[in-house]
């Protein structure tokens, strides 16, 4: 039983600091949630108390502990149709604007990063097939990348647990997945719909292959980066995109902690970020 206590004052200090760094705001109702994880981190770092832990956190050169803390405070599960409101926004709003401004018949390019085990890019493909009227009129290219080659290989295989597909409406599951031992296999057509590759977005040479992107889904990745890396990533995205293209971040993420290169846009389903149409 830990003897470490988080006082009201400690909580306020931590709350302000964390809000400033990440944009995530913890209300008083989240005390139990936050205290528990804070105490875990204090113990894991072998700090004597909140104060010495807070100093470590603030002044650590590598930013590793902040990353650990963010990990601890966020829920990280990946599954199909996670944060579905953004897919709705894609088919209801973003693609309309993109097609309205298109000057040619070049494919619409969507980049999902990180791919993780592929739930996100495959979700995008399914959503487009099911809900976008323009799917018959326009070519779409879905590219997805991750820094981890093992996970890229896993994404290419397209095999998923029951847990991973639990958010999917039954008809969708039946239409695009084949039941298999221990889970489901995504159908061959969908496997072929996404181009997976190994990419480190911090590496300029890796990212230069991504050009003329119309929509980037980068959810729950940048929140784990330090300030300088976030900015760099934002710049990379900016350069890889067509003017007027959109970026979607995770629901608890915001460009306000990342970069001022993009315009904030509100659509009925979501707030997203846009590379300005006119030159900045």
């Amino acid at each position, binding site marked *: 039983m830990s003897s470490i206590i988080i006082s009201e004052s400690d909580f306020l200090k931590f709350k302000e600091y964390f809000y*400033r760094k990440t*944009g995530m705001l913890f209300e008083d109702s989240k005390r139990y949630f936050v205290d528990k994880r804070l105490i875990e981190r204090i113990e894991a770092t072998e700090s004597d108390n909140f104060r010495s832990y807070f100093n470590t956190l603030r002044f650590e050169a590598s930013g590793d502990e902040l990353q650990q803390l963010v990990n601890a405070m966020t829920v990280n599960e990946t599954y199909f149709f996670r944060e579905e409101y953004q897919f709705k926004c894609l088919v209801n709003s973003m693609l309309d604007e993109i097609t309205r401004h298109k000057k040619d018949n070049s494919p619409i390019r969507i980049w999902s990063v990180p791919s993780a085990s592929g739930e996100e890019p495959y979700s995008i493909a399914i959503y487009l097939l099911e809900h976008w009227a323009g799917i018959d009129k326009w070519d779409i290219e879905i590219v997805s990348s991750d820094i981890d080659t093992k996970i890229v290989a896993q994404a290419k295989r397209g095999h998923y647990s029951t847990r991973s597909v639990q958010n999917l409406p039954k008809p969708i599951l039946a239409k695009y997945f084949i039941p298999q031992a221990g889970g489901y296999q995504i159908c061959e057509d969908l496997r072929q719909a996404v181009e997976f590759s190994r990419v480190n977005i911090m590496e300029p040479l890796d990212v230069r292959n991504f050009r003329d992107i119309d929509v980037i889904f980068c959810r729950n990745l940048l929140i784990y980066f330090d300030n300088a890396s976030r900015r760099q990533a934002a710049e990379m995205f900016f350069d890889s995109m067509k003017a007027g293209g959109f970026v979607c971040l995770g629901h608890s993420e915001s*460009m*306000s902690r990342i*970069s*001022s290169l993009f*315009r*904030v846009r*509100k659509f009925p389903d979501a707030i997203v970020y846009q590379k300005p149409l006119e030159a900045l």
Partner: protein
Amino acid sequence: MKHILVIDDASTVRLYHRNILEKAGYSIDEAINGIEALEKALVKSYDLYIVDVNMPKLDGYGFLKEFRRLEDVVQAPAIMVTTEAGANDRTLGYAAGANLYMTKPTKPNELLSYVRLLLGEVAE
């Protein structure tokens, strides 16, 4: 009840203004810079904005300029509150779309009288 968005990167300043204004019966939300302020303003219609100038990512001028050009928001008055006091800064503030300009540190009575004025709560 009137809703005010307090935009400042310093948490103590936001808390100070929050205390003054909540005591006077206003509902307060906070934003740490211009981008966060835009995100909030796009989702909720505020009756008044209190805007600091020097903020990271998007400063007060940048916020106001963008906010004033948005078509799908309800426009509302804005008080610019900042350390700068020169005539040039005030001109910039008004050009960006501020209605009033206050220098820091603010005093509660002065802030409240400006807020009430802009919210049409005081007969002048």
